[in-house]
């Protein structure tokens, strides 16, 4: 029946609109990347031309690699993102399991308490968070960032994961109990593998905001040794603002890791979103 629903002009129009929007979405990235490979005069003379043998230049990248410690920034971002994600998934899944599996006094209240943070952004508490980190000596450490991002990610993680865990069959868990598995084993061996799609959803939802955040690195960890890639490129570009080659190359280098992550995980994003809905 669906063929009858569509006809050629409509399909073509849909493609035209989507294609136009795709161009709008990708054009800025494209312009930045192609110009980062050009010599200064060609950036200005022919900004839309692809780099050719004549205009090709890596001078911008040389400046960036000489002047900025981009490998360190990258490493910092990587540590912060990976550790925060691991903690969000582990702690979030444990709490979600407790809330969805056991009936105990205060269950609903605890669920509501943890859900508060879904809607209230953690940034509102920044003044006191900075004070807390100063008093515990965690300012300018990656630990401070990891703690903040873990706290920020937990509410939604618990919410999504507990709704998934309610779908795990009770028979399976009870069979495990009869076989003498402890509650911890049931969680790690039986339940956790079954909610892997939900874990992936939670991970992709959290990964990008953590990687891209500028606010907390700026306030909690602005030292040279703890700069994340986002903050590092912001500061670098601010300093080299008139050196167009360096700015364009720094932008391209900052785009690269997220694009790699995206290519690796874009399936998970879609699958996560739709599996949440379709189940």
């Amino acid at each position, binding site marked *: 029946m669906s063929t009858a629903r569509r006809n050629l002009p409509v399909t073509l129009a849909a493609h035209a609109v989507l294609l136009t929007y795709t161009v709008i979405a990708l054009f800025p990235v494209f312009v930045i990347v192609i110009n980062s490979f050009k010599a200064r005069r060609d950036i200005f003379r022919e900004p839309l031309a692809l780099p050719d043998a004549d205009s090709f230049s890596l001078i911008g990248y040389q400046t960036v690699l000489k002047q900025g410690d981009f490998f360190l920034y990258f490493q910092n971002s990587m540590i912060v993102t990976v550790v925060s994600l691991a903690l969000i998934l582990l702690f979030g899944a*444990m709490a979600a399991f407790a809330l969805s599996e056991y009936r105990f006094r205060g269950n609903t209240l605890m669920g509501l308490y943890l859900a508060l943070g879904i809607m209230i952004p953690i940034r509102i508490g920044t003044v006191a968070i900075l004070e807390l980190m100063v008093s515990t000596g965690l300012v300018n450490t990656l630990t401070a960032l990891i703690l903040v991002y873990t706290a920020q990610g937990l509410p939604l993680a618990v919410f999504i994961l507990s709704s998934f865990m309610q779908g795990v069959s009770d028979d399976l868990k009870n069979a495990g109990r009869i076989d003498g598995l402890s509650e911890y084993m049931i969680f790690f061996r039986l339940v956790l593998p079954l909610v892997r799609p939900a874990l992936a959803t939670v991970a992709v939802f959290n990964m990008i905001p953590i990687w891209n955040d500028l606010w907390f690195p700026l306030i909690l960890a602005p030292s040279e040794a703890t700069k994340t890639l986002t903050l590092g490129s912001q500061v670098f570009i601010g300093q080299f603002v008139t050196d167009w080659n360096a700015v364009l190359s720094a932008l391209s280098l900052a785009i690269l890791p997220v694009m790699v992550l995206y290519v690796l995980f874009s399936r998970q994003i879609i699958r996560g979103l739709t599996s949440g809905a379709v189940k």
Partner: protein
Amino acid sequence: MPDPTPRPKARWHIAVFLAPAVAVYTAVMIFPLFNTLRLAFYSREGQGRVFAGLDNFRTLFLDPIWSEQFWNALGNNFWFFFIHMAVQNPIGIALAALLSSPRLRFAALYRSAIFVPTILSFVIVGFAWKLILSPIWGIAPEMLDAVGLKFLFQPWLGQEGSALTTLALVSVWQFVGIPMMLIYAALLTIPEEILEAGECDGITGWAAFWKIKLPLILPSIGIISILTFVGNFNAFDLIYAAQGALAGPDFATDILGTFLYRTFFGFQLQLGNPHMGAAIASAMFLIILAGVSLYLFVIQRRLRHYQF
């Protein structure tokens, strides 16, 4: 009558499962949140702090220097939100509707490509657009020239009248992928039978979208609206990356996030003032709380959720 189920033994594992999440969440999120609200009622005196009652709020709302900045930031923030609601969400819904049409080729490709800006950091987005719109580089004027519209070109980011709208549109460009994805997922859950039933009654194409699909995805539109609201009222990064903490030109792009940053952390000649910062954060908290409550208690109740 004896209890049919045996009394459960102490269930320590529940506490063990809950403890790490509750501890981190309480210590790093909830406690600082309330502590920030508390700090808004104090002020610095010498080395210590003293209780100051509502003084900070009085300064914020009544002192001409502060209140002018506050209302400016708040007004800008509402405009920023308005542009998102008026541009980002309709575009997102339209794209999702097109993508979900059956048997559309390359749908996955379009979807992934349109989502690309959403994954880029504000720093990249802010600078990339700053360069593209820059009159020095001339990409924007050159492209307008190509379609004979060069006279339209203005240094949009540098003019007080257009800078905020331009940045809001840049933010729309960046985030249109989120409503698109969420609506797309919602559209996929609509069972084929319902659409086929509509088809039997002669409802197809546009009519099917307006009369069947749109009502069914209203709850998702509600969620997107509240996400946009919360996101916009604690936005900061894009403005900071593109215009700096002074949110130029002449504070034309200042929103609550940048105002909070300048006040709390200090910038250039201005010294940081944590207590005034806490007062601004409290105002932001109340605004967001009001928006979320409006959504939860008024809007969400009116939207019927359909179960299939």
